[in-house]
């Protein structure tokens, strides 16, 4: 064991505070420090994950209070996998935005990286914590940094998007708090494992109400259907890397929170069906909305929502295969959607309105970016031999094994819609006449690097899915094994 | 009918100051106008008076007056009346406006007149020869064209018909018609 899970929260938080101080001494350190932090954390998390896979979960107690009274952090295969994924994406975001256009100046760069570190802190915290109130706090941290990042490009639209996000976020926080209050009033504990152990004693009315408030509160981060109105605006107004960070990091933590609550804390069978239903509705509405979009980032945003709907459906299947598929979907979504956001935001970089039409004919002038975008599009609609195919296949197998034939049909139909709008863009990039007013923007080297890394992952996982399936299996087994989690957490002593 | 005729004549005269009417019995109305007025009077007759049908365009070669007379014959199916619109062109420079925008079929007549009389219609587009092929020289329907001379010069003649008299001479002799001098000039 090479480190403690606490570091994942402490170091980025610390970095967020140190950045302005260091910036006074050496301006460039504002950029470099987050990278160093992320590299360190990533190596740490990979090491820890390797350890966890061999030796079982690490439970870290904070401030010496043992569960169920104190706050504890759980670095299991499931959460560890997500943390690693998030940190990896965070690192890519850092590489990508190292010399991103608007943060070249010192002040914006300072703000940007502070907020980014806070965002990562919060997201990682949500995943690692074993305490629901603590989770609430981290959600608020994520929320605040996310509102600010949304409004990073100071302007009317950004402010509006940010404000929408703020309203929704506040509402969700209220409901979340209500849910926590209900549970606390019934069980007198905030520790997840403890709640999970005793949940059967709670009256169904309270239980269900609490669950509903949880779902509503967390569903906003997880882009669940009627609660995801913020997403398109935010994605389209935030800077490109921030969009990728939202899709790859924030949303993942939201989904994690819901899954943890549905799978571990509550024992309500109906919740799984609810996830399937709400996931399907999310998917349907998001994809149908996406096909009518004329702006690049909005389209990607709706697509992202749809993918999360798919993830929810996969989790809703409730079997281990389902969870496995869901995790694979999350992984792919994180990688591919980041790739699409990166490449897409460069494609529409110099376009004023960010219309999809403006990417016409850029295949010639921006060959690599265009290729990567096309690769991402191919992968995300699930064409073999790219990564997206395997997750879709696993998902369908899991669904079929559970007998959800109609749902499979529905999802496949929606996938066709997805194909239509992604291929429309790819066609425009490669086979349309160039729009006269669009000046192609050469991606900076670091941006290109991060895109190529993602693209390589897409291809490599496509050809050798075995590289990732082992970890995913462990992670899914870990999530499914509820009693193990409870025992592990509650049996911990000094 | 006479009332309608006079009404039409009045209207035309009121609208076209250069229109000179010559009265004929029956269903015929006759105007003489300047060649510049032709398109407008035809338009007027077609659109305002109901003379929808162009029956014919023809040409008379007034050799003595050194003029061509172009005559448009149009017909009103409603009133059952026909109008002759005449105009005179200078024989040395026979140019007038093309009216095939008013009646499409005028095209054919104009092509014929162009070939047979040499009247030029401004803006008349015709792809190729109409009746004559590769004709050079004087248009054959002009009265000063020496048909017989041309034929004798161009075509072979079957022996045995050299002494045949001009049919026209025989006819004039037989009917006692007086042949004017200018006509004699162009016949053998």
């Amino acid at each position, binding site marked *: 064991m090479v480190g403690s899970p606490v570091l994942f929260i402490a170091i980025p938080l610390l970095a967020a505070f140190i950045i302005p101080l260091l910036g006074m001494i050496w301006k460039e350190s504002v950029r470099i420090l987050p990278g160093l932090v992320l590299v360190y954390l990533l190596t740490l998390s990979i090491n820890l994950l390797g350890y966890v896979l061999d030796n079982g979960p690490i439970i870290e107690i904070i401030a010496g209070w043992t569960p169920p009274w104190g706050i504890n952090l759980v670095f299991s295969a499931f959460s560890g996998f997500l943390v690693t994924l998030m940190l990896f994406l965070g690192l890519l975001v850092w590489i990508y935005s190292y010399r991103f256009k608007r943060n070249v100046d010192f002040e914006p760069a300072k703000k940007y990286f502070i907020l980014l570190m806070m965002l990562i802190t919060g997201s990682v915290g949500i995943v690692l914590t074993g305490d629901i109130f603590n989770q609430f706090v981290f959600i608020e941290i994520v929320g605040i940094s996310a509102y600010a990042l949304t409004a990073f490009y100071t302007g009317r639209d950004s402010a509006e998007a940010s404000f929408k996000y703020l309203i929704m976020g506040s509402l969700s926080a209220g409901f979340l708090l209500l849910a926590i209050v209900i549970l606390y009033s019934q069980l007198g504990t905030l520790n997840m494992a403890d709640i999970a152990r005793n949940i059967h004693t709670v009256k169904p009315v309270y239980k269900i109400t609490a669950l509903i408030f949880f779902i509503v509160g967390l569903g906003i981060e997880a882009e669940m259907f009627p609660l995801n109105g913020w997403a398109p605006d935010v994605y389209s107004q935030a800077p490109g890397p921030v969009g990728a960070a939202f899709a790859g990091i924030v949303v993942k933590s939201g989904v994690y929170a819901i899954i943890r609550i549905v799978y571990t804390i509550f024992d309500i069978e109906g919740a799984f069906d609810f996830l399937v239903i709400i996931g399907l509705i999310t998917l349907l509405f998001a994809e149908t909305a996406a096909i009518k979009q004329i702006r690049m980032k909005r389209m990607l945003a709706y697509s992202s929502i749809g993918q999360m709907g798919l993830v929810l459906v996969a989790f809703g299947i409730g079997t281990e295969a389902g969870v496995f598929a869901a995790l694979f979907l999350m992984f792919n979504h994180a990688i591919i959607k980041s790739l699409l956001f990166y490449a897409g935001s460069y494609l529409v970089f110099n376009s004023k309105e960010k219309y999809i039409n403006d990417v016409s004919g850029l295949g010639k002038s921006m060959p690599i970016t265009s290729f990567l975008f096309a690769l991402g599009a191919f992968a995300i609609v699930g064409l073999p031999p790219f990564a997206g195919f395997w997750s879709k296949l696993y998902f369908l197998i899991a669904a079929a094994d559970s007998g959800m034939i109609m749902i499979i049909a529905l999802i496949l139909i929606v996938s066709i819609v997805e194909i239509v709008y992604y291929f429309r863009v790819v066609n425009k990039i490669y086979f349309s006449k160039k729009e006269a007013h669009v000046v192609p923007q050469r991606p900076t080297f670091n941006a290109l690097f991060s895109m190529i890394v993602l693209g390589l992952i897409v291809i490599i996982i496509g050809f050798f899915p075995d590289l990732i399936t082992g970890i995913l299996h462990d992670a899914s087994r870990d999530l499914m094994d509820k009693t193990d989690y409870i025992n592990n957490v509650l049996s911990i002593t000094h | 009918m006479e009332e309608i005729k006079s009404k039409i004549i009045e209207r035309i005269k009121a609208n076209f100051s250069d229109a000179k009417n010559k009265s004929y019995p029956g269903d015929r109305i006759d105007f003489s106008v300047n060649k510049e007025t032709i398109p407008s009077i035809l338009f007027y007759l077609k659109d305002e008076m109901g003379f929808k049908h162009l029956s014919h365009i023809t040409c008379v070669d007034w050799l003595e007056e050194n003029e061509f007379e172009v005559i448009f014959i149009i017909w009103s199916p409603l009133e059952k009346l026909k109008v002759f619109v005449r105009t005179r062109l200078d024989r040395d420079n026979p140019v007038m406006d093309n009216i095939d925008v008013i009646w499409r079929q005028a095209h054919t007549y104009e092509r014929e007149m162009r070939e047979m009389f040499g009247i030029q219609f401004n803006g008349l587009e015709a792809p190729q020869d109409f*009746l*004559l*092929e*590769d004709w*050079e020289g004087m248009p*054959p329907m002009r009265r000063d*064209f020496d*048909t*017989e001379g*041309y*034929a*004798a010069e*161009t*075509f*072979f*003649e*079957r022996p*045995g*018909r050299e002494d*045949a008299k*001009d049919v026209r001479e025989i006819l004039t002799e037989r009917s006692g018609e007086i042949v004017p001098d200018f006509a004699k000039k162009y016949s053998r």
Partner: protein
Amino acid sequence: MMNDKNSQKIVDIIQNYARLHSLFVLAYGTGCGAIEIPPTMTSRYDAERFGIRGAATPRQADVLLITGYLTTKTLKRVIRVYEQMQDPKYVIGFGSCTINGGMYWDSYNTIKVLDKYLPVDVYINGCMPRPEAVIAGFVKLQSLIREGKAEGAKLYKDNLEQYRENQKKVIPNWVMPEYNW
């Protein structure tokens, strides 16, 4: 055997017999004479009993029937049609107009003597010749073929230059493929 003169003669006789009893007629309706052809073919006069039959195109035809006056413009087409016909071929001039111009003798655009331009085998006199006369003309042509005297095509071939000169005199713009068979 084929080089033998007598056997050639026998072949000729057989061929001529077939030819004269199978006349495919291309009736070139240039003038008013065209109206006399249908009665010739139909029930009352029944030219088909002589083996006379209408042909639709010059490639299939044996006889070119020129029915009436020829303007310079139509002359060009007639020459063209004649040259497209395959040997052996015959020309029948029909009506006074083809003989001496008829009533168009002094016209500026009608040729008067057809045989200056095309080799006419048989002329049928009259203005217009009646179907009886037409049939008589055909019978005359048949007897000429039988005797081997219907050599119009050969005449044309031998005197092509002279015919051309005459033709080009009235047809100034000569754009036709060469005739060399």
